[in-house]
């Protein structure tokens, strides 16, 4: 969205002239500036997502060794940010995210599956549990 500096009319962000008063809205070529939406095309170190907390949570709270690779990739990503390798850091962060979901998914499937089994066994009433 671009607001016309002349009349205040709101135009599409790619509009060259204001549809209301015809004032030129953009200089060609467009001045470089921060993108207005979507993922930034240039990432600063502070913008690289960090999945360390999620990795710790799936490893410890979800009881999942599949969380270990998530910690490895999160650590790798943080180390790469530190050494200025932003592209590599983003790649590792993506892998960390994937492993977080894998660990969470396995944990969720086990939990839901077990509860379903428990409920079915209870309602069937024929099974006995021995501790």
């Amino acid at each position: 969205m671009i607001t016309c500096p002349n009349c205040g009319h709101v135009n599409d962000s790619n509009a060259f002239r204001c549809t209301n008063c015809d004032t030129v809205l953009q200089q060609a070529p467009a001045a470089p500036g921060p993108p207005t939406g979507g993922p930034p095309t240039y990432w600063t170190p502070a913008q690289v997502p960090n999945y360390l907390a999620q990795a710790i949570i799936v490893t410890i709270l979800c009881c999942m060794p599949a969380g270990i690779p998530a910690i490895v990739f999160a650590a790798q990503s943080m180390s790469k940010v530190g050494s200025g390798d932003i592209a590599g850091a983003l790649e590792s962060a993506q892998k960390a995210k994937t492993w977080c979901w894998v660990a969470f998914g396995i944990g969720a499937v086990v939990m839901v599956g077990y509860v379903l089994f428990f409920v079915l066994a209870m309602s069937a009433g024929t099974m006995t549990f021995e501790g």
Partner: protein
Amino acid sequence: MSHSHALSVHASVTERLGHGLLLAGAAGSCLLMYSIDPAADDSPYPVCPFLALTGVPCPGCGSLRATNRLLHGDVGAALGYNALLVLTVPMLAYIAVRSFRIASGHHVPRATMPRWAGYTVLGVVLLFWLLRVIPAEPFSALAP
């Protein structure tokens, strides 16, 4: 996340909803973990699949029992079930406070961590795992 977030003072509706749901889920889980004793013989919780398959505890084993004890204020018993879980409490508290602030409309910038924090966490988790599977004193104190 777009650039504009770095400048905005308010969290977006999606962010607020997401963090609100996260908090509600966490509160519900805490209530469940508080009221159902996972250490009871008739506990409805499953055994850790890794432990069931291998016979060896994973780094997360005992965290459910530890959380239950922690919610009842018994830090000693919680440490006995899973010491790492007790270590994560400050982090979880930070996340809860941050989510609460975002859910109530504030913009909270992403926390920055030192570059060595990742590998330190990895080392601590692997060391804890290694020590807790050693079936001898004093390491068995770390077993779930």
